[in-house]
């Protein structure tokens, strides 16, 4: 497994679209991430769970480019991430869409920003109007897909939570980003809407196969949706003075997509949930670093502690 030649290593590296290399993140004195290593292949649906305050969202922000590691690297296609950009779309739990724009305006906003300068309507009114018509059509296609076309002219404060998140997903997807980062997108939704949104998001992913990083605090959601599951936790046996979270579990999830919601009731599903809950999320169960279950084929294993 560790017998790569350097050429093989390079070829392997090219296959990863996102990676963290020994990433540390401190907020003031407090260390949140303790040397995280993570490599993600294109097309993967990675779900990330972990106890409150473990730094799941921090990890996502490193990939997003709204935050940078205090030491170590965050890479997109093997280049340092220096800013947020259009290749990595994002859906937050709240504040994803702009309250002063209608649903349709929100969805087409990215296309407008990409094409028009600030003074386009004045400098080039003819082109502006023609292009805008195209964008409206394209936005309406996406709205139809997320089943929001009838609400296209409403403002966000007239929508339900689920509708808002569907708008946010359409808004991010219209840019055709290579990566979709989702930070507890369904955290504020009720149970029924939540399941509907899970199925909907999986449908979208199966159609486009963009890479998804999906942060959630619901273990069931993580197992149901992901093709790869990562548990980040601050609960493991630490050396003196060591602080912050590590990836304590990194596994592939056995069921093939597309999945039916019925698998949530199966014995295997419940068993996997229980296992991860015990190993990954129980603050009283402290594993040795060497004992972490990093069985996913892309997970970065370290034989010796550094």
């Amino acid at each position, binding site marked *: 497994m560790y017998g790569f030649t350097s050429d093989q290593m390079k070829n392997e590296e090219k296959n990863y679209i996102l990676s963290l290399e020994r990433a540390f993140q401190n907020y003031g004195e407090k260390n949140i991430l303790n040397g995280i290593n993570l490599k993600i292949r294109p097309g993967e649906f990675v779900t990330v769970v972990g106890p409150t305050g473990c730094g799941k969202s921090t990890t996502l922000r490193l990939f997003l480019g709204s935050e940078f590691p205090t030491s170590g690297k965050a890479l997109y296609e093997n280049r340092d991430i220096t*800013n947020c950009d259009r290749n990595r779309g994002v859906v*937050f739990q709240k*504040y994803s869409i702009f309250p*002063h724009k209608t649903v349709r305006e929100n969805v087409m906003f990215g296309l407008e*920003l990409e094409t028009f300068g*600030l003074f386009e309507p004045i400098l080039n009114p003819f082109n502006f109007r023609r292009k805008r018509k195209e964008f409206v059509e394209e936005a309406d296609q996406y709205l139809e897909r997320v089943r929001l076309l009838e609400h296209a002219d409403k*403002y966000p*404060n*007239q929508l339900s939570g689920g509708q808002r998140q569907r708008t946010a997903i359409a808004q991010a997807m219209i840019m055709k980003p290579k990566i979709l980062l989702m930070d507890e997108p369904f955290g504020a939704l009720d149970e029924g809407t939540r399941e509907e949104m899970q199925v909907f998001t999986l449908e979208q992913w199966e159609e486009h196969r963009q890479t998804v990083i999906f942060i959630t605090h619901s273990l069931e959601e993580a197992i149901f949706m992901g093709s790869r599951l990562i548990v980040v936790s601050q609960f493991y046996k630490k050396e003196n003075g060591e602080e912050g979270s590590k990836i304590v579990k990194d596994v592939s999830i056995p069921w093939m997509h597309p999945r039916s919601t019925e698998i949530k009731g199966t014995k295997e599903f419940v068993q996997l949930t229980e296992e991860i809950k015990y190993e990954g999320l129980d603050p009283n169960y402290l594993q040795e670093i060497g004992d972490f279950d990093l069985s996913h084929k892309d997970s970065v294993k370290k034989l010796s502690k550094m």
Partner: protein
Amino acid sequence: MKLFGLRTKFSRPAALALSTILFGLTLWIYGDYSSDRHAENPRDKLMPTAGQMLTSMGKAIFRPNVIKEYDDDGELIPSNEPETLREAYEQGKLWNMLKNGEWQLWEDTMATGYRVFIAMIFILFGIFVGLYMGLFPVFDHLLYRFVLFFDKIPALALLPILFIVFGLGETAKIALIVIGVAPTIILDTYLRVKEIPNEHLTKGMTLRANSQEIVYKIVLPQIMPKVLDTIRLNFKAVILFLIAGEALAAEAGLGYRIFVVRRYMDMATIIPYVLWISLLAFLIDYFLRKWIQKKYVWLHQ
């Protein structure tokens, strides 16, 4: 039905009646007191009757100021020039009078309106200062403390300095308003910008907005209704500084007039002028409020 209940519901007529009580009471007490005083002393100046106020307002509105000329002995030189619209009409000089006459209320309102207008342009400029201060750390560090410091200086205390530096002209009066109100607007805009969740900036960047697009397409449209509300509420301060400036040095203006006629205890002019200023301020406030409600539907629904 309980009158003082927390959730007492009033019918519309009842609510309206309740709202008019204090207005009616004020008018009634004034009228009663005023007529008592006039019964005692018909030349009372302190509490003019409604009729007297109407007459003096009528003069201010419909009768131009005629420049009276005096000879060396101080005797009034009789003039054939018309003094009222009717006289002018009879002499066939109506157009001439309308064109050349000095219409007191109109001139005063225009002089004051001009000052407010110029001051508002500077104050609106403050929105952009606050906007950039809130979004760009460089402007934040450069300006925040400075503006905060300026905001603490009581603007009225600066008035003598302004008069010394800028002379008694328009500049000093406009500067007083700007110095008095702009820091509040800047700081308020700044705070509104800071209220915008960071997610929106991130989101904008992932949708390919550059920093100017974030300023003008994401942040400004969101804070605009709230900033307009602040300007609306601070309009009172604008008028306040304006009247203070006009009281000390001016040749025309609503505030100037009040302070000039004070020398003659001309309450019949002062009271309607005060009401006129209040009415103007109320109307501006009203239309701005309606406009905000209409334009920013997304905020209210």
